[in-house]
């Protein structure tokens, strides 16, 4: 399956949900926000939210800022 994640085209296998994708990148589910095709995915449904071939995903977290 081909996805665009944080602007980069990537190939993934065995990824069916947003939760799987976070695990694929070894990103902790805590304190991240996810946008799938322009819509925010509620953190309580990461593990149920399906990902399809061609989806555009943004994985966002907090960083230092003023």
């Amino acid at each position, binding site marked *: 399956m081909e996805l665009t994640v*944080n602007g980069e085209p990537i190939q993934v296998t065995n990824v069916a949900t947003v939760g799987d994708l976070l695990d694929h*990148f070894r*990103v902790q589910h805590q*304190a991240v926000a996810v946008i799938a095709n322009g819509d*925010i995915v509620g953190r309580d449904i990461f593990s149920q939210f399906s990902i399809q071939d061609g989806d555009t995903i943004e994985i966002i*977290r*907090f*960083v230092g*800022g*003023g």
Partner: protein
Amino acid sequence: MMLTVPEIPALPIGSYRFRSRLFVGTGKYDTLDTMRQALEAAGTDLVTVALRRVNLKNPEEPTILDAIPSECTILPNTAGCYTAEEAIQVAHLARASGIGTLIKLEVIGDPDLLWPDPIGTLEATKRLVEEGFTVMAYTSPDPVLADHLQRAGAHAIMPLGSPIGSGQGILDVRQIARIKARVSVPVVVDAGIGSPGDAAMAMEAGADAVLVNTAIALARDPVMMARAMQAAVAAGYWGAQAGRMPKREEASPSSPVSGMPHVRS
């Protein structure tokens, strides 16, 4: 020497309440450890953060939230947004990440000055307030705009002292006093503070709090500077409460003018 000034009363913003009048940003520190020590030294309980993409090449790098003292409330900003729509979406993302409804609203209109866009800021303030956010609105130091933002429901007005990260200080401190005289919500001077003197000046002018980032992060000793900023905020706050003397054009002797001893000239 012990500081003998009394403790400053807590500051309410929306339904939040902050013990410290020194808010601190988390950008530009050399290390997360220095940042954590500086935040502790500042005695702050409100710290700003930004939202950015996870670095997929190093997804396990430590998260900034782990280095922020647990007593601090997190204030996410919308830095980098150039339209009301972008800022609203970033606010939604911040809320989706599960840290509450507080937002430092920045809608920028000029990329070199990072000057706030007044129209976009006002529009985004209205929308986010309607959606239940606690909005702290970063703004140019304009008393009329401050009043518009308050009427739009902003929970705090955050006038800049000078451009973000410039360290130029508060270029027109009278604007802070003018804004303070015209709004009832807290006024937080944000951006431009370069030294403890600037922080004290903002507080003396009537600011309810200051937000400092670069002046601490880029100091030779950030932890010492954080302490100095805390002392300066207290000095300025109590100076304002005490009420400064009026200025006058000519000198007025502090020593008696009569009873001068006769000395040989």
